[in-house]
């Protein structure tokens, strides 16, 4: 059943229609929030808060797609939570209890696994160094792979603004990663 059909059922008060929407979007929203906040616990809170807001508000949604709207709410929640809380250092691959959440391919050897971990750490720091609007732009585009139009809807800005933010954000991301040997091995060799 597509989003609109589920939304129609929600509007008629069908609680059970909401669960498939949660299952459909919780992981990509969590991934987005993890990249935006850099913290697994905050990211989980973002997803929880997003669906809590959505549960009451989604039935009133008019004229927008469910997916773009959920990203819109999640972006706002990420900003709120990240702003409210002191930055908590965390391994990007572990939850608050240290359990690994996103293991690289188990077929990888220890060296490749270590490299993936270094890459993840470098990308996490590079993203957190970006100004908020640019971080959101590059995450929605290159992590969640939203279209320009979906991003415009989610961010309430024109498509042209979306494109310019993505362009600027990618340039800043590349600059932030330039010295990372995990991303640019030649940088290490030069030393």
């Amino acid at each position: 059943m597509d989003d609109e059909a589920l939304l129609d059922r929600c509007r008629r008060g069908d609680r059970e229609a909401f669960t498939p929407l949660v299952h459909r979007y919780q992981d990509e929203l969590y991934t987005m929030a993890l990249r935006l906040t850099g913290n697994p616990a905050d990211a989980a809170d973002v997803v929880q808060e997003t669906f809590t807001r959505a549960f009451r508000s989604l039935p009133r949604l008019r004229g927008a797609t469910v997916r773009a709207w959920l990203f819109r709410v999640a972006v706002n929640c990420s900003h709120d939570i990240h702003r409210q809380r002191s930055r908590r250092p965390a391994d990007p691959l572990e939850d608050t209890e240290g359990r690994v959440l996103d293991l690289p391919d188990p077929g990888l050897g220890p060296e490749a696994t270590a490299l993936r971990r270094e890459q993840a750490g470098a990308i996490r720091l590079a993203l957190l160094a970006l100004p908020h609007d640019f971080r959101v732009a590059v995450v929605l585009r290159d992590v969640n792979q939203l279209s320009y139009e979906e991003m415009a809807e989610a961010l309430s800005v024109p498509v042209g603004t979306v494109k310019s933010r993505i362009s600027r954000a990618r340039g800043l991301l590349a600059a932030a990663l330039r010295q990372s040997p995990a991303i640019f091995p030649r940088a290490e060799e030069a030393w």
Partner: protein
Amino acid sequence: MVSGHVESLFSAAYDGELSPDARTAFDRHLGECSACAAAFAEVTTAVDALREQPGARMPHPVRLPEGSPVPERRWFEVPARLVQGRRLLTGLTAAGLVAAAAVAAVVVVGHLNSGADTRSADSSGVSGSMSAAAPGAAIQAPLASPQSASLLPELAPLLGGFTDCSPRALPISKTEALEIPTGFPNHATEDNGVSTGVVATQASSFAPGGTVDIYARLIDDSGGAVSLPCTFLVGPPSASSSGADEVTVAVPTPVAGLTVDGQPLLQVTVPATAVAGQSFEIVVSSIDPDDTVVILTIQIS
């Protein structure tokens, strides 16, 4: 960097958005310009690395609120923002009165000692300012419309005065509403995904008994409709309020002739009993009583 070259096209090129002719010219330039070629390779490598990061999984189940996603509306309902650690006036939980899901909210303020002064207003309830009472004192408010009053016969004995603060539509665009007027430097804007709230005042600190002009706008994110929203002035606990709950001391109201750029403002009076150093909050709410949209803090000086 490589400004003056093709740096501005990197992102579009990465996304495959260049026309065939533009892509040909872009590739030709990269073949001739080592700086652009290196810079584009750097962006490509960085973005590829981000894209190759594995997706993450939500580590625990999402807990949904109880009940139906379309809750049954009650006639007498306390806005969640105010329930959570806040009370309206002294002890009595005055309330946001949600007339119906599809119509504007009506906020009712009152107290048990119904000797409050009330004064007439037109049926829209918008003429005349409302004196913000100190916690424990009577609020003077315009009478609600007969229609609103008729909705509340069982509450009439409880209400010393009440006001219709239904959000009223304003004939302005979302863009216009988001433009904070000159002279209102203390402002806040919040977008909760359904509505965008804007609230602004001419100063951030006010004396006890001072008058606060409030620019408040609520914008429906889906349709872009702009309204003058239900707004509360929330203050710190007072000796007469129970517990440590903060207290809603007034509902700012539109005042005839008080406008900015031809559009109405709200106005409220800081309680005369307010004490320097205290903080008050101006809370803008949407028609959904669960939905506080934006909060602006003012200080008492």
